[in-house]
């Protein structure tokens, strides 16, 4: 366990050192992701089964294996 703790700490330090220059890129990526997610949610609203309750209720399986 000790070895890993050490390794994790050192990788955290590296991440912190890099953080300032990476920050703008990261937030731009975040914006892009959010926009993509919005588009995706629009699409999901279109393809999601219309009567959710009935759809879920009718999905009954026999146990398997």
């Amino acid at each position: 366990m000790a070895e890993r703790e050490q390794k994790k700490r050192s990788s955290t330090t590296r991440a912190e050192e890099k953080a300032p220059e990476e920050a703008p890129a990261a937030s731009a990526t975040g914006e892009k992701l959010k926009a993509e997610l919005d588009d995706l949610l629009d699409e999901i609203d279109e393809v999601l089964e219309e009567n959710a309750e009935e759809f879920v209720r009718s999905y009954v399986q026999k146990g398997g294996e």
Partner: protein
Amino acid sequence: MAVKKVCGIETEYGIHHLGGDNPVSSSSMLVSAYVADLERAGWDFEDESPGNDARGYTREGAMPPAVETHLVNAVLTSGARYYVDHAHPELSTPECSDALELVRYDKAGEEVLRRSMVAVNRILPDGQRITVYKNNSDSKGNSYGCHENYLMDRALPFARLADQVTSHFVTRQVYTGAGKVGSEAGGSHAREVTYQISQRSEFFEETIGLETTLKRPIVNTRDEPHADPKRYRRFHVIVGDANLCEVATFLKVGTTALVLSMIEDDALGNVELRLSRPVQAIRQISYDLSMREPVELVDGRTAGALDIQWELHRLARKYADERGLDSVGGEGVGREILRRWEEVLHGLETDPSAVARQVDWAAKLQLIEAYRDRHGIGWDDHRLAALDLQYHDLRPERSLFARLDAERLVEEESVMAAVVQPPRSTRAYFRGECLRRFPGAVNSANWDSLVFDVGTGPLQRVPMMDPLRGTAEHTEALLDGSTSASELLERLSAG
């Protein structure tokens, strides 16, 4: 020295038949529609003995699964087996030699089911439709499996294997879990669960046992090697979720193959990772999205799921440096397993959304959170259960998973090739190629033999007791030089 971890996945798919009421016949129609146009051989049941227990006995009251010989059952030219098991369509991939190859064949399996849906829906009456889901639960307390198989050295005592592998099986769900809205278990704790990591974890009631349908055990003892029983064991793993994310399948198989190799080589020998209550722990971890809640170890200490995974990863790295990675596909695939394992654990401990392109439960959770946010709905809204189910829908036009930008590890083109071509690195090559080249002459097949009917004389059985023989390297020239099955058999017996 650990034996090469030849591996495969058997997936039972969920099936919904609009306008139908018998899932067994719906499954049969689905599988038949696919195989109707294909040259295929029947399955040979000579080798089936699912009631054998790896511990050397059958426990009183144990109920080995019945082999249902009357249902549709086919071997494909990829070396896969496609059939009806209980009330589900099931596809067993061909034997693969490493986790990356298996990702390719697992995805090819999905494509077989997709093509089956197209084929069956073309012939169903108006108003009827069959849809297939790659998940493990109907959210009403019924579960169906996604099993893995790994080639093991028979010399390894099963008790040691079971004892040492359990911690991995209980904690690997942090990246193999496919995510589930709500809970199907009883009890006040379960009722408070809004979302959990695994589809399957709640269904495990024993630490070890032979059953797969009742009182499911974390370690399954089915002893049916489908290979030389003196040398090999086929370790049958029933504790996993079916994954859609390629990275999740890669890690599920890759980390497990590595851990099993380490157990064979006694590299996990003195590790004190054993859990005092595995059945309770597997459920607790599934409910704990932080993955940090401590579970009890037998030595009195506690550890979180991520801690245990980090420790296994550290030991695996050490093992790789000292003993090499030959058994899990060599340096290339082996190092990739270690690298991705580390990357995913880092992501999970930072924020699960960091691994939403790699891990199914994280992908589904991100989708659900965004959907809840947009519509301002609570966890009990039916649309979330619908979204959960539809994540696993295999129809491209309906699948929510297909709309996510999940990371891919295999080229689409190579997946399409794997629908019909066998892997070159195991005996599946010989099985698949014989079917492709001499479809009329293969009477039947199973995992460890092929039966030929060349029209004259008795049926001839060709045994394939070693999963690592019958590869392209061993048999391609022989096959290329044979213009008929009779010629092939003559050359084989001439040795």
